[in-house]
Structure formats: structure tokens, C-alpha cells
């Protein structure tokens, strides 16, 4: 009886081990290290969606590390991730200093593949790929829509803070608005945070009070406050990164979509085609990583079909480079 029990115990211990060995992971594991926190229903959530899809479709082992805008965590979190995962995606322009160092995680983990999302280094080793997005192109369309819908002759934008990536949105937005009506005023407001919706609401209210009747939110979770402000004063807003129409279908006219998750998904699921170490990949409108979303068909639409057609035509012009949207980044061709 005793021997039997011992045997049972040993077997029960061994079973999970055997099972684990039988089930070798088919795809490499991947971890995203986000500079802020999940739940912004925008940038970081989009990245998370990408790896969630990987887990669902390929059974990929995935992980998320949130830094919550704590600068002291950026570097150590990358190390933590690199120790355990085959692919590490640093999601957020904020990681630039941690990756730029001489003894950075890149040189200490040469076998790990790194993705730097939303920003680019100047020269970097083969195990890193930088992915930037042509947010200026999508923001151009958003600016065009804003200017078309504006009756007051002023449109606004709330940015997370004053840095190149956010300014790239704003430059495109401004160009689009001016392209539609050269007289329009484009006002900007920086919240200096991506995690504080209350601050975002203050910024948006300042813009609405200042005469803007449509505001583009480019500030992650801070942007939620922009939508709250739009509801309070009953004016319009434009979402960012994900299709945010569902948050307030009556007031969010469209969203500038940046498929961060899709790009991570593509690189990890099909590295032979997508992973180009040592290069910067500018995911743009042509390849479909930048787009404009109007929510689902059941949602009330503020953008007329006619305007949508104009936007579609503009999109083609941008893709064929008939229209060159200005950018903060000097894109190396």
C-alpha cells in the first residue's frame, strides 16, 4: 500500500514534467515592456492585443512588464524581459536612453531579438529592429476631417508631451487641417503625462474654451480625459492608436489608427520576412499599419460619405507620394 502511494506521488509529480516536455513551444516567446501602463485603450493596449493574438493563435508564451512611467524601471525591465524571452519589444519612445547606452541590454543579450517601438536609434546592433510609424500621414487625414467638421475655424490637439513622436502627429495634423482650409487655427496643448486623464480633461477644456470645436487626443490614457471634456461641453473629438469610436460614438468622429500590435504580431509570427535586424522599419499607410477608423457601421457617423471618399482619395495621394506630409523625423530614404 505504501509503495503504491509513493509510486502515485512520484507519478503525479512527473506527469506535469512529461507533459511540459512533450509540448515544446513552437513559436519563440515574446515580452512587451511598456513605458506606461495597460488599460489606456490606445497605444499600449494595441501592443498588448498583438501579443494576445500570438498567444491565441500559436500558443506563444507572452509576457507584459509595465513601467508606469517610472524612468528608473525602463532599463531594469528590459533586462528582466531579456533574461526570460526570445523577443523583447520596448514599447514607447521613452526607452531610447536605456537602449542607447554602450553596455545596454542589446550587447549583453546578443541572442535575444529586440524591437524598439515608436522611436529609432542612430546606429545599433543586428539584434535590434526599430519600428517607427508614419503617424504624420494618418494625422494628416485626421486634421483634414477636423478642419472639414469645424465650424468655429479652430481645431485643437492634446499631446502627451513635447517630444518628437508626439510632435510628428501634431505636424501631420496641422498640415492636414491647413490643406483643407488654409485659414484654420490649430492650437496645441501638452499634458506632460500619459497617465492622468484629469490633466487631459483640463487641457481639452482649455482648448474648447479657446474656441476649438474638435480636439485630437494624442496622449494615451490622458486622452480619456479629452473624451470626458468633449462630453461635458458637447463638442467633438478624434481618437488615436486604436479605433476609439466605441468609447463615445456620439462625439468621437474618427480615430487615427496606428497598428502597433499588428506590427509586433507580424514580426514575431513571421520573422523571416519581417525581422530585419539593424534597420529601421517605417510602418506607414501604404502597408496598412496607419489608417483611419470610423467605428462600426451601427455607430452614428459624423463624417459624411462624401468626406470619406475625399479621405480615401487623399490616402491614395499620400501613398503615391503626390502629397508629401511633413514630418518631424528626417526620414532616411
Amino acid at each position: 500500500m505504501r509503495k503504491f502511494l509513493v509510486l502515485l506521488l512520484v507519478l503525479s509529480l512527473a506527469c506535469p514534467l512529461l507533459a511540459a516536455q512533450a509540448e515544446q513551444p513552437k513559436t519563440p516567446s515574446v515580452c512587451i515592456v511598456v513605458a506606461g501602463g495597460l488599460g489606456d485603450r490606445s497605444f499600449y493596449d494595441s501592443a498588448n492585443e498583438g501579443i494576445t493574438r500570438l498567444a491565441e493563435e500559436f500558443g506563444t508564451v507572452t509576457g507584459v512588464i509595465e513601467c508606469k512611467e517610472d524612468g528608473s524601471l525602463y532599463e531594469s525591465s528590459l533586462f528582466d524581459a531579456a533574461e526570460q524571452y526570445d523577443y523583447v519589444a520596448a514599447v514607447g519612445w521613452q526607452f531610447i536612453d536605456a537602449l542607447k547606452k554602450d553596455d545596454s541590454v542589446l550587447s549583453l543579450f546578443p541572442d535575444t531579438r529586440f524591437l524598439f517601438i515608436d522611436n529609432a536609434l542612430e546606429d545599433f546592433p543586428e539584434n535590434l529592429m526599430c519600428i517607427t510609424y508614419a503617424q504624420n500621414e494618418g494625422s494628416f487625414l485626421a486634421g483634414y476631417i477636423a478642419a472639414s467638421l469645424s465650424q468655429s475655424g479652430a481645431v485643437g490637439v492634446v499631446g502627451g508631451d513635447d517630444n518628437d513622436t508626439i510632435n510628428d502627429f501634431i505636424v501631420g495634423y496641422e498640415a492636414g487641417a491647413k490643406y483643407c482650409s488654409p485659414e484654420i487655427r490649430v492650437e496645441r496643448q501638452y499634458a506632460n503625462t500619459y497617465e492622468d486623464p484629469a490633466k487631459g480633461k483640463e487641457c481639452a477644456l482649455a482648448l474648447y474654451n479657446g474656441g476649438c470645436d474638435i480636439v485630437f487626443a494624442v496622449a494615451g490614457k490622458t486622452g480619456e480625459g479629452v473624451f470626458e471634456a468633449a462630453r461635458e461641453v458637447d463638442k467633438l473629438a478624434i481618437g488615436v492608436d486604436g479605433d476609439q469610436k466605441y468609447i463615445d460614438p456620439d462625439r468621437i468622429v474618427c480615430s487615427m489608427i496606428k497598428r502597433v500590435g499588428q506590427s509586433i504580431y507580424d514580426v514575431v509570427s513571421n520573422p523571416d520576412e519581417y525581422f530585419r535586424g539593424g534597420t529601421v522599419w517605417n510602418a506607414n499607410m501604404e502597408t496598412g499599419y496607419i489608417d483611419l477608423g470610423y467605428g462600426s457601421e451601427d455607430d452614428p457617423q459624423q463624417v459624411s460619405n462624401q468626406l470619406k471618399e475625399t479621405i480615401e482619395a487623399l490616402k491614395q495621394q499620400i501613398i503615391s507620394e503626390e502629397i508629401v506630409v511633413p514630418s518631424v523625423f528626417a526620414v532616411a530614404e
Partner: protein
Amino acid sequence: MDLSSIFNVGTLLNTFNTATIVILAGLGCLMSEQAGMMCIGIDGMMTAGAFAAAVGSWYSGSWLVGVLCAVLVGLLFGCFYGVMVVRYHSDEFIIGVAFNIFAVALTTFILRTVFLQSGSFHPATGEIKTLPYLSLGALGGTNINISLMVPVSWVLIALLQIFLYRTPYGIWLHASGEHPDSLRSVGRSPEKMKYLGSVLCGLFCGLSGAYLSLGYLSTFTENMSAERGYVAVACVIFGRSNPVLVFLAALLFGFIDAAGMRMQGLVDPTLTAAFPYVGTILMMVFLALRNQRKLKAKAGHS
């Protein structure tokens, strides 16, 4: 860019709306300050209150229940603070800092494990009922909409002013911090008054949290108070724990913040974010100079 785009009705409205968060928390902080305890933990109490308010309002479908939940959670935190500081003589600052860290971690943990959401609370079914809004017509082209909690906070300021300076309880509360032995000599327990101070501190911080998640915004987000509690502490010190002065200090802060934000076109935006803090330093210098002058005047008399 002209002055009217920086100083207009919207700026004032913005000032009052955002200052209410700080005012309510400041009222809490000054109650414990009156009893001689510096409660740095109000930031955490606000976060916990905001979470309780959002969950309570969503669960019951009534904003009133949400506010009551926030008050209840605030009271719990206040009691705990009182027990630790009065009974076990632990360091008020350590407890306060622990509160701030604990509240953020606890609310985040519950949000993620119980409600299976991260970042912010957006229930799939049902909705978070928010505090009613009062529409006071339009002024200068701006519609004046304020949350019910804004006038409530003004009433509370008046009540607290009377409570602190016109009732024996207020005097006792103050004495429990300043001269506990003299209070004991008239047969009153300073410990009881200190408990009262810390419990009331929790109550008002809970209200502040409720305003944050049900009044100013309509949801709870992680680390929602975003260090506004510390601004409240600064206001209490600047306003010398007097409700009306704390109210004015909070308005001044709110105004600097709102006006600073609107100056982004003129000044570098990273600099405007520092305005409230530059304001704090200037105020403290002013306070120190005034105290010194008073001391000198006293020395001159004697």
C-alpha cells in the same frame, strides 16, 4: 496670443473644478493637522476613495451609494491611521507614505483580479452613475456646468470654519495637538480628539476621491490622484490649517495651474508644468519672510 485667451471665464471655471479635488483633500488634511498630526497619506486615501466610489456607484447604480462607499473607505483608512499614530505612536510620515503606496497597489490589484481590467475601470455591463451636474447658464460664451460636489465643498468649508473656531470641539481638537496636557487637565481626552481628527481626515479624503472619480471624471483609473494629495498638504501648510485660507490657497494653486497651461503657446510647455511648484516655493518663501518679520516685531516690543 492675447490675454483673453489665458484669463477668461473658462480659466476660472477650470480653476474651481480642479481646485475642488484639492480643497476637499485639504479639509481632511487640516483636520488631522489641527490635532497635531501631519497626515501625508491623504493621497492614498483619495485613491482608495475614488475606487470605492466608482465601484459602489457601478454596483448599486446610484451615485449616492458610490459617495457613501468612498466615505466609508475613507473612514476605515482614517481609523487605521488614528490607531497607528495615537495608540501605537508610530511615525506619521511613515504611515502616510505607506498609505499612499498601499492604496495604489491595492486598488490596482483589485481592479485586475476581481474586475479583470487594467488601467481603468470600464465595466462591460451597467454604467458608473456620476454626480449630478448643475447648469448655471452661460457667461461670456462659456456654459457654466459644475458638479454638485463643488458647492457642497463650499458649504463644508463654512461648516468646518464654525466647527473649528466656534464650538468647544474645535478648540479641544486644536488643544489636543498643541497642549494635550492642558486638555487633560480640564477632563477631556486628547486621544479621543486625535481619533476624531484622523477619522474626519479620512472622511473628507474619501469625498475628494469620490469627486475625482464620479464628479470630475466618470471612471476610476490607476493612480488616479496623481500626487494631488501633496498639493493639498502644501495648501494646508500655506493656509495655516484654517479652512477658508486653505480654500484660497487651493484656488491660487488651481489658478496658477490653469493659467500656466493656457500659456503653453508663449512659454515652453515643459516649463508651464512647473508653474504650480514654482508657486509653492514662492509661497513658502513669502510665509517664511512674514513669520520672520512678526518675530522681529515681537522682539522689538519687549
